[in-house]
């Protein structure tokens, strides 16, 4: 069991977390992932988008 300090909280681990990229790098990686995904689906979203969207009509529910 981890040791607790006077406030009942575990002591901070002294070895620094190895990975945890800097926030800016993480944000960049996240934006890249999003852009890659958009590039992948762009083609299918472009095909008859207007017709596709308009053809989804269903009566209301509750």
């Amino acid at each position: 069991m981890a040791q607790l300090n006077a406030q009942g909280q575990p002591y901070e681990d002294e070895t620094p977390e190895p990975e945890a990229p800097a926030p800016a790098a993480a944000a960049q990686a996240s934006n890249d992932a999003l852009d890659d995904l958009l590039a992948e689906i762009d083609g299918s979203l472009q095909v008859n988008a207007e017709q596709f969207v308009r053809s989804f009509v269903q009566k209301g529910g509750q």
Partner: protein
Amino acid sequence: MLPTDIPPPLDVDPARRILGLETEFGLHLDTGAARPVTPEEVAGHLFHSVVQWGRSSNVFLPNASRLYIDVGAHPEYATAECDTLTDLIALDKAGERIVHHLVAGGEERLRNAGVEGTIHLYKNNTDSAGNSYGCHENYLVRRRADFKAFASALLPFLVTRQIVTGAGTLTRTPTGAHYSFSPRADHMWEGLSSATTRSRPMINTRDEPHANAELYRRMHVIVGDSTMAEPTTLLKVGATDLILRLMEARVVLPELTLAREMQAIRDVAHDLTGAATVELTDGRRLTAVQIQQEYIDLVRRHLGGVIAPSAEVDQILDLWQRGVDAVRTGDFSGVESELDWAIKHRLVMRYRERLGCDLSDARLARLELAFHDVSPERGVFYRLQQQGLVRRIVSDADIERAITTAPQTTRARLRGAFVTKALESGRDFTVDWVHLKIAGSSGTTVLLKDPFRTEDARVDALLEALEPA
């Protein structure tokens, strides 16, 4: 001989609550077929395999949940009774996979009927013509004489919670389009009512507890958006449960009664800056951010008192606060992997940048539908989740298990065991939220009025009667 005496209700921890979610899915056939195909016809083909094993398009599943075709040909899935948020999220997600599993069979039957096409199921709340369908939340509450006043007291919370729990949507107007918090907000007509399709209230007050009516009522909240991200569902149901816990403990809520709820819910929905004010009956004007902050502060004050501290309550409060902060500051980055409206806002705005179009462009509307597509392969929400861009609460293994296994800590356990066994045995049976019956078995119907009870000798006897002789 089956025992017929009904056991007394268990002593139930007041912090325990039965929770449930009902989701109506949008059903869309994308086809170049020459003849028109109605949603009813598509739904019929989609549910063919269900009718094959269940003899009806309205069935209870081995996971104790209900699957059926609702008004307007919407496939609907109602989770079994859960008493933890993680069970509820897993069961809700299992429902998406269950309806998705019907798609291939439905497409094949359509093909045999001469219609080539792709069936899309959307976990969203509006079609392209502006028709609305819902996601209903159920919270079991202790019966009280002043239920209407009790329910009314929840309205200021429900009107404003959309700034954190809304699904977000592109709203098209004659002059263009803008992004708003909730697709459901524009479809609300009144605060409380016992009707749902004629008049669309935020809380349905029909007295149908599906439990011992002397002890319980069901708070049936129908103003919420269907939510894709697990943390959004956690916050939507978790925060509402916390407020109900305070109300049931007779904690005095801050005086926040709204002067015009229907106007307020629309004004809040359409102002992404969170600066729009709503009028209170006492004449004050507050923003949704201020009102939600009052509720967060109230919960914090009672943490350790009425509300027992837990890691889950901390998680709810943390996300709730970060959601409110995001709206107040206009910096959505703190919640864009957790709250539906922010996840989708980021996606839509990034795609718009890429296309260099305006918000009314059909390709963005197409993207929005794709976001809500329940297909794990095609659905853009799931593509984002697979990329690690959406935080998880439960695991895929939890969801897979919930497809076939009922929650084990509520009455659902009994129903799940019965349905599973009855299907294995091939015997005809009938079941609903409170009844279990083997057809033709000298007519014994087991009535399960206590939704917290997980053991019942009468059900054991039914299960035994289903064993092969």
